C-alpha cells in the first residue's frame, strides 16, 4: 500500500514537473511568459507586471534572463517600472521551485500636475513557484528595490504570479 502510494506520488511529481522533450529544444520553448499581480507597499500601488523569461541554457537549467514592464495604479500615482535582470529557478522538474533574482530597474511615477519622477536602480526578488501542470507554475515572491540614480528611494512589496512555458 505504502509502496504503491510512493510510486504514484513520484509519477505525479514527474508528470507535473518539466520533462525534456523535443519541444524543449526549440527557441520558443526557451521562453516563459509570466503574469504577476503585485502590490508596492512604499508608495501604495497595485497592478500587473507582465514578464518575459528567457532560458539561455539547456532544458532544466536554472538561469533565466528576465524582462518585465509593469503598470500600477494607486490613490496618488501611476507607477511604471521596467526591469531587466537575472532569475535563478531551482529544483527544475520538481513541484516546489524556489527562485531568486536580481536586476536593474527604471521607474517612472506620474501624477497629472507634476513632472514624471524617474529613478534607476536595482531590485532583488525571492520566492517560490509551484508546478501545477505541464509548463505552468504559480507562485509568490517578495521584491525589494533601491533607486540610486535620479530620485532616490527604497521599496518593497509582494507579488503573486502565473507563468507558462511557451
Amino acid at each position, binding site marked *: 500500500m505504502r509502496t504503491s502510494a510512493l510510486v504514484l506520488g513520484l509519477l505525479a511529481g514527474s508528470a507535473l514537473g518539466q520533462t525534456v522533450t523535443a519541444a524543449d529544444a526549440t527557441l520558443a520553448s526557451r521562453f516563459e511568459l509570466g503574469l504577476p499581480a503585485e502590490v508596492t507597499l512604499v508608495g501604495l500601488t497595485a497592478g500587473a507586471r507582465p514578464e518575459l523569461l528567457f532560458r539561455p541554457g539547456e532544458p532544466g537549467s536554472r538561469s533565466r534572463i528576465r524582462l518585465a514592464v509593469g503598470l500600477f495604479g494607486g490613490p496618488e500615482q501611476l507607477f511604471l517600472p521596467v526591469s531587466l535582470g537575472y532569475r535563478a529557478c531551482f529544483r527544475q522538474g520538481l513541484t516546489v521551485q524556489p527562485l531568486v533574482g536580481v536586476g536593474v530597474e527604471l521607474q517612472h511615477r506620474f501624477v497629472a500636475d507634476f513632472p514624471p519622477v524617474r529613478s534607476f536602480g536595482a531590485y532583488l526578488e525571492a520566492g517560490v513557484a509551484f508546478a501545477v501542470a505541464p509548463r505552468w507554475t504559480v507562485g509568490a515572491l517578495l521584491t525589494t528595490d*533601491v533607486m540610486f540614480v535620479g530620485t*532616490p528611494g527604497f521599496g518593497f512589496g509582494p507579488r503573486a504570479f502565473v507563468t507558462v512555458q511557451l
Partner: protein
Amino acid sequence: MVVRLALLVFAVSGCLGGPVTPAPTCVAYVACIQALDAQASTTTNLDRFVAGGACWTNGEIAELCATGCERGLARLRERSAALPEACAP
C-alpha cells in the same frame, strides 16, 4: 539595518545635488528683514537663508526656501506700511 544602509546610499546620492547659490528671492528677503530689524532695533535669525545656510545644501531644499522667501516677501509688501527701501520690489 538593511533599511538604514539603503537609506544611507540614497541619502548620499540624493543629496549630492551639491550646494546651490542662494535664490534671488531669498537675497531680497534677507535684505528686507535686516532693514526692518535696523528700523526696529531688533535682530532676526536668518541663518538658513544666507549663503552657506541650510537652504542651499541641495536643489530641493533650495526650491522650498525660494518659494518661502518669495511668498514671505510678498506678504510683507501687501500688509506692512512704511517698509524700508530694501523691501521694495
